[in-house]
């Protein structure tokens, strides 16, 4: 049985790093804004009101958290694509199933 090409893990690693960097940058900008503008209050923010509710700092930090939360899901999608191209259909199917269950979980949570 052949080993997997090294490019797939590197691609996944890149997704993790880009997601992490984007999230951290947005969080740092948002926290700095909150401290400089005196908007440092711990208030809840809803997913539906992410772009409209709260202060600007809340929205920027909230977007950073959203990017962080989406990163693992993007990794699953990338793995499915990679395994499908390699002909590793069984594991690609597992990934598709995970994505489907994630979508179901989100739907149940919002219900």
């Amino acid at each position: 049985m052949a080993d997997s090409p090294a490019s797939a893990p590197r691609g996944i690693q890149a997704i993790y790093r880009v997601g992490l960097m984007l999230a951290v940058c947005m969080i740092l900008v948002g926290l700095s804004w909150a401290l400089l503008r005196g908007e440092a209050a711990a208030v809840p923010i809803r997913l539906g009101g992410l772009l409209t509710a709260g202060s600007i700092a809340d929205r920027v930090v909230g977007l950073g958290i959203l990017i962080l939360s989406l990163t693992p899901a993007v990794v699953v999608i990338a793995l499915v694509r990679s395994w499908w191209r390699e002909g590793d259909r069984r594991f690609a199917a597992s990934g598709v199933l995970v994505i489907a269950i994630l979508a179901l979980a989100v739907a149940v949570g919002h219900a």
Partner: protein
Amino acid sequence: MSEVSIGDLAALIGVGIAAGWLGSLVGIGGGIVVVPALVIALGVDFRVAVASSLVAVIATSVTAGSVYTGTGLANLRLGMVLEVATTIGAVAGGLAAILLSTRFLAGVFAGVALTTALYMLRGAYRPRTRLVEAVVSARGWEETGTLAGAYFDEFRGGLVRYRGERVQVGLAVSLAAGGISGMLGVGGGFLKVPAMNLGMNIPIKVASATSNFMIGITAAASVFVYFARGFVQPLVAAPLALGVVAGSWAGAQTAGKAHPVVVKMILVVTLLFVALQMGLRSAGVEIGG
């Protein structure tokens, strides 16, 4: 915590660093450290603490993933197969949490954590992986179409080959771990790591790295529920996540150099802490919230 001072931010980052380091090293999300620390020490609402903890779990997974996937330490195929059961369990667990009492759930949690700690303690000095003398590569890999792989162990100075066995054991425990994760808002890695290590014959470091990959997916599904219900406070969750990123990075850097027995012992101590915490909650001794 309505107004967030610089001191509060420093405390949140400090809790995150401690949780991230431990979580990355032993393959858990750090939620068992984050939730009690936020509730007891910082007076944060319990559900906000759980939501913040889930963000920290994701941060741990993403940070460790950015390191482990490059080394080939995490077996992504193994993680994806087990994640099918974990996500099903997480959905079922979330629904069950509506019907069952918190004290009952805490009792189950304490029993499972204590049993697992004792089982890990018994097997801590019996490494099962086979050390291959020849050093083929300084990086690990997975085999296409199977649950097998290999990695270079810096501590042992050689290549370690492994092959996943008894997948049904891993799936069953992952289902339970997903259920507990959905019910209690933790990553569930404290169950999956010993299940992979002891039940599937996966080396502890591979199991920890694979668990880190898995808990991010599971927590991501859960955190959107809290987001939708307004339990995510960005100025609480974000500094915590930053601390976790720093702590996870430190943990991931040292994981390859740590002795497997030391890693296992850290996990055992963590599990005993969880058992004590949940046992107290089950007995009606509220630790906060």
